[in-house]
């Protein structure tokens, strides 16, 4: 029994149960909807989930440090609009320049958030509630009532969401979805293997202790916000490619879906625990629900109520169940340690 407890870490139990829920949900919808198991369903879900996934990677970095970034939706909207405007005025702009522009603008907006939080000592919820309004206000003022139109965009950008990277059976893995997957995996590796990733966990578990231990807490938190901004900028670029028509209220409310994915994916809102893989499973679950509810002809207005309930359920199970599982795991680890130390003496 102890050995099973040792093999499965609490986070993995959480991810496994999320995977089981996903399988259950897919089986349920498969029995309710005709022609559910088709490449088209996969395509719809993957393309609706990719933007959320990319932005949620950044949000996870921030939430791990016991902060939160509500302003991501405004950053996505603002970068999508500015990038769209630049490319429509100058169709010859190279893809690399455009992506760099989106990433840079996003990073700059994230830098403002990060400076105020890390060096201004203002709670992240206050800063980002403010910048959520400010960035949106800047966008509305800058864009006015003019929309970015698909016909002004170059062909490569409009065709980008349909570019196919490779095919598994009948399932096409589109380029943008593959990029989103790659980002999730890269940042999962960063969290596990890089000192920076470990610092995020240390700061989130106990900010005071992390500072006492000499970790550069301010720089680490600042970089988390900058990365979150840059990834939101990339999300803005993807939004531009996928939607094409960008108005000044683009991506409004996206931060709710992003935070829902992060929290449902098992990233503790109090910081210090959670993985990118879990977040991805959370995002996929939300995406499956969203697309399947539409297919079931259930009113799209039910979507938000479901998302709200899921966040509450996820937070509640985290607080009520996961803490106990973690306690159990820590205790069995201590037992194992004790057993190892006493074992050689018996021989």
């Amino acid at each position, binding site marked *: 029994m102890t050995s099973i407890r040792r093999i499965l870490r609490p986070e993995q139990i959480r991810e496994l149960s999320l995977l089981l829920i996903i399988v259950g949900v897919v089986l349920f919808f498969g029995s309710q909807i005709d022609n559910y198991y088709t490449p088209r369903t996969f395509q719809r879900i993957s393309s609706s989930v990719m933007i959320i996934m990319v932005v949620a990677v950044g949000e996870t970095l921030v939430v791990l*440090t*016991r*902060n*939160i970034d509500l302003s991501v939706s405004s950053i996505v909207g603002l970068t999508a609009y500015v990038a769209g405007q630049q490319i429509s005025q100058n169709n010859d702009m190279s893809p690399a320049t455009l992506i760099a522009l989106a990433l840079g603008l996003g990073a700059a907006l994230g830098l403002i958030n990060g400076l*105020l*939080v*890390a060096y*201004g*000592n*203002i*709670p*992240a*919820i*206050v*800063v980002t*509630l*403010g*910048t*959520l*309004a*400010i960035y*949106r*206000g*800047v966008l*509305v*003022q800058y864009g006015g009532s003019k929309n970015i139109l698909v016909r002004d965009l170059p062909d490569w950008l409009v065709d980008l969401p349909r570019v196919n990277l490779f095919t598994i059976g009948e399932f096409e893995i589109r380029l943008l979805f593959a990029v989103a997957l790659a980002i999730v995996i890269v940042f999962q590796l960063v969290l596990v293997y890089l000192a920076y990733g470990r610092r995020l966990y240390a*700061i989130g578990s106990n*900010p*005071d202790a992390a*500072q*006492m231990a000499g970790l550069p*807490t301010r720089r680490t*938190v600042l970089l988390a916000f900058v990365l979150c901004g840059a990834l939101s900028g990339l999300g803005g670029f993807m939004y531009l490619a996928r939607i094409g028509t960008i108005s000044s209220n683009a991506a409004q409310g996206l931060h*709710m879906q992003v*935070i*829902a994915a992060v*929290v449902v994916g098992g990233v503790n*809102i*109090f*910081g210090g625990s959670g993985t990118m893989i879990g977040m991805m499973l959370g995002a996929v679950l939300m995406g499956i629900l969203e697309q399947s509810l539409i297919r079931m002809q259930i*009113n799209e*207005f*039910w*979507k*938000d*109520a*479901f*998302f*709200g*309930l899921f*966040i*509450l359920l996820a*937070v*509640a199970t985290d*607080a*009520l169940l996961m803490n106990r599982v973690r306690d159990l795991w820590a205790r069995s680890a201590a037992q194992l340690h004790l057993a190892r130390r006493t074992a050689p003496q018996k021989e």
Partner: protein
Amino acid sequence: MPRLRDWRELLRWETLLAVILLLVIAVNIQMSPHFLGTRNLVNLFQLSIEKIIVALIMTFIIINGEIDLSVASVMGLSACLFAWLYEQGTPAEVAILAALAAGMLCGAFMGFWIAYANLPSLAVTLAGLILYRGMARILLEDRSVGQFPHWFTRLGQTDQFGPLSFGIVLFVVLFVVALIALHFSAFGRHVYVIGNNRSAARYAGLKVRRTKMALFVLSGLIAGLCGLLLAARLGTVRANAAEEFELDIITMVLLGGVSIFGGTGTMIGVGLSILVVLNLRNGMSLAHYSGNIQTSVVGALLIASVLLPNLLRDARQMWLRRGARRRPRPVAGGQEEEESRQTVDPKPIARS
């Protein structure tokens, strides 16, 4: 040095707010001759009446160390439920009671998770924000419902008591009640103590859970009431009613000198900051700035309301340290000791 301390007493946050308020009013008077007209002064309150009433209960919640992000959604849900029931043929009086009950239920539901399951209020009320807005969308979808009874819409519009509306009178009454409840009642002291140190309050025998539960139920009830006021004032209800009102409400409270970490703040400060925000918005309207710029300015104000005290505190500490270096003082007493502790403590990165 008693004299210096007296002088420092004047440097309270409330004094600063009063000076800012006078400045804003002076600029407004300069800018428009209509500013001082009764009509404009009534409108000043009337256009944000729901927000400022909710800001009163939000003050209690933030002083208590929690936050309620869901108030705007509860307002929307109560307005939508009222409109939906009325549309289905329910008498308006019953629909009003149902909407108020729904508001209380929303608050009680979140209060349960926060007070009895010890979940962070940030996460719970964020879930509430999405959940209740979703329920409002389920009720009204993309329709807009109006044509409420005449007596109901009259409640939300002006000229009930002289030039004043029902909402303004209600705000004044509730402000006095909140002032007394926060500063001159046992309940108010409990709210402060719990906000300062939850565990200490529990060990001292205070009913921490019941106090938190009561605050969230009250918050739900008042948000429900304000949703009805909004429905009455606008005459029609859509599913996005009151969306994003939480920004203004939280800004008013934090600008009033209430610490987001709980435990400090005064009702007078919140009253002054409400006046500042209202006058600022009114002045910007008179100067023909669009609503989005106004919202941006409120967002900047929200950040400034926390950044400024931080900077002031840092500056004061530096000043104190320089003074200490110049002439060594006797062993520092309570206040100084607390301040030196603050310099050693790592600054909290954020409290969720």
